């Protein structure tokens, strides 16, 4: 197991990548991306058995589906730093002729992405389909998926939740980014989610909770969740995160959900995040 301190270093660099990508694009969603940086890091650098020599079908490896596609900068960062594509490509995020679309897509052939997401509520169903294909092929590996919490307002999520339990899709580990924020404000004001653990349990899922911004807790909970797989039930981790975590003036507010930092806040944000692995190469700023 990688040392926690090493994972924390990677997560710090992932956060810098998020700030840089959204700054260079002057577009994108830094808030949720920062909040999930620890989760992405733990998944790609500790928990998942995956091969950066990407093959779409994902046979013989763990696979990941990002259902809340708008936090793509965080995912792109861990994909690039795992070796799926060159680091300098992060500088093309949201720009014309890039493989790094605003929301993840397969259309341009970006390694690591298996389905387009962005229109919310769809990724969980796709993850279940992938899990069924693994079952049919006798592949013992796990399908991981991440959804937002606001995304749980989409009806398709609960269709998928019902299906997953009914068909005993127990090679599926879903995490919900429970940051309590969405574009129009706190979820309890926009559309209250109610008792989420009870809801998932009532749908027949194994439910765990964790603090998604505490690296030891993330690693520990993900490995405990993996142990629960194979028991006839899909597993969901309700992951408490702080939107914007790691940059104090971005934390806990929905205002930075879809607003990139401009120059002054960008430098203030970077000043709070240690450059551990080296920032990705960028074209000279004019």
């Amino acid at each position, binding site marked *: 197991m990688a040392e926690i301190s090493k994972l924390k270093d990677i997560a710090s660099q992932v956060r810098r990548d998020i700030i840089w990508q959204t700054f260079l694009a002057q577009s994108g969603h830094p808030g949720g991306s920062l909040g999930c940086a620890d989760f992405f890091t733990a998944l790609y650098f500790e928990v998942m058995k995956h091969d950066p020599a990407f093959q*779409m*079908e*994902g*046979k013989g490896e763990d696979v990941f*589906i990002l259902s809340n596609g708008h936090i793509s900068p965080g995912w792109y960062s861990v994909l690039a730093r795992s070796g799926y594509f060159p680091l300098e490509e992060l500088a093309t995020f949201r720009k014309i002729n890039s493989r790094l679309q605003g929301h993840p*897509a*397969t*259309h341009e052939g970006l390694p690591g992405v*298996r*389905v*387009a*997401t*962005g*229109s919310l*509520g*769809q*990724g*969980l*169903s*796709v*993850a*279940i*389909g*992938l*899990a*069924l*294909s*693994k079952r*049919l*092929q006798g592949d013992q590996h796990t399908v991981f998926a991440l959804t937002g919490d606001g995304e749980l307002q989409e*009806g*398709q999520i609960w*269709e*998928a939740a*019902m*299906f997953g339990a*009914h*068909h005993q899709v127990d090679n599926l580990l879903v995490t919900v980014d429970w940051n309590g924020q969405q574009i129009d404000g706190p979820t309890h004001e926009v559309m209250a989610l109610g008792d989420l653990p009870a809801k998932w349990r009532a749908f027949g899922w194994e439910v765990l909770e964790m603090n998604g911004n505490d690296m030891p807790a993330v690693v520990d909970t993900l490995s405990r969740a993996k142990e629960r797989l194979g028991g006839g039930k899909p597993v969901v981790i309700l992951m408490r995160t702080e939107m914007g975590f790691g940059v104090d003036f971005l934390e806990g507010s929905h205002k930075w959900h879809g607003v990139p930092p401009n120059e002054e806040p960008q430098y203030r944000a970077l000043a709070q995040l240690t450059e551990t692995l080296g920032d990705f190469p960028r074209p000279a700023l004019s």
Partner: protein
Amino acid sequence: MLHSIQANGKKATREGFGDGLLEIGRQNPDIVALCADLTGSLKMHKFAEAFPERFFQAGISEANMMGIAAGLATGGKIPYTGTFANFSTGRVYDQLRQSIAYSHKNVKVCASHAGLTLGEDGATHQILEDVGLAKMLPGFTVINPCDYNQTKAATLAIAEHQGPVYLRFGRPGWPVFTPEDQPFEIGKAVLLAEGSDVSLFATGHMVWQAVEAAKNLAGEGISVELLNIHTIKPLDEEAVLESARKTGAVVTAEEHQRYGGLGDSIAQLLARRLPRPQEYVAVNDRFGESGKPLDLLNKYGLGVADIEAAVRSVLQRRATSHSTH
């Protein structure tokens, strides 16, 4: 050629789908099927009983079913989804668009009970917009076979095609007039009868209506060239242009809204390449209603007599345009 086209009894196109699915399931172990609580209606029970481990009941959750199909396709399977045409398109359009079309997933969206001939269930279920919806999605192939035999053949053929397909068929027993075990070539129009006066392009259930109309018109001395356009997208442009060039007058017939269906695809092609007068036999911006299939076709302008009238009308227009030149 025309008089040799005879119906050999009636059978529903959905039966052709069910039998085709069972057969392709036997041939190809990668075929999987999903159904949203309409196994009997779609005739998918034969596949479900033969291959229970490859059949997934989705319950009444079509959006989820499309996503799961996309995931199964990602893992290398060839999923066939089954539900009514209404729930295969309009209800799940964003799922078709993002999870399947944009993501290049090899999903076969199999849609029964399309159009007015669904009958008694009425307009809530009689979708007349599905071909337009499906054909607008980049990369989607859109197929509307005409009878039991052709639907079965199409069900087999789409497994060989890499990419998303919308396969449309219907509920009622319908004349069977194409050969058993026919080859099915996606994107290749079938010339049913050569003629010299007018080109009649028909799809789905309307092909049989067109056969009857063409026979009646032959009695009046009008020579109809009849093509079965089973694949609406990609359209067999060369076959359409060749016939239109020969006859100089075009009629299209489909169980769909006039906006967005086969007629529009052909009109677009003719406008770009070979402008010729065209008449549409299609539903004109209306919803259907409950009733018997043939009564509904007649009421909504899709009867045999309507096709004949459209032919006479387009011939008159062609004559007028010639005389003004």
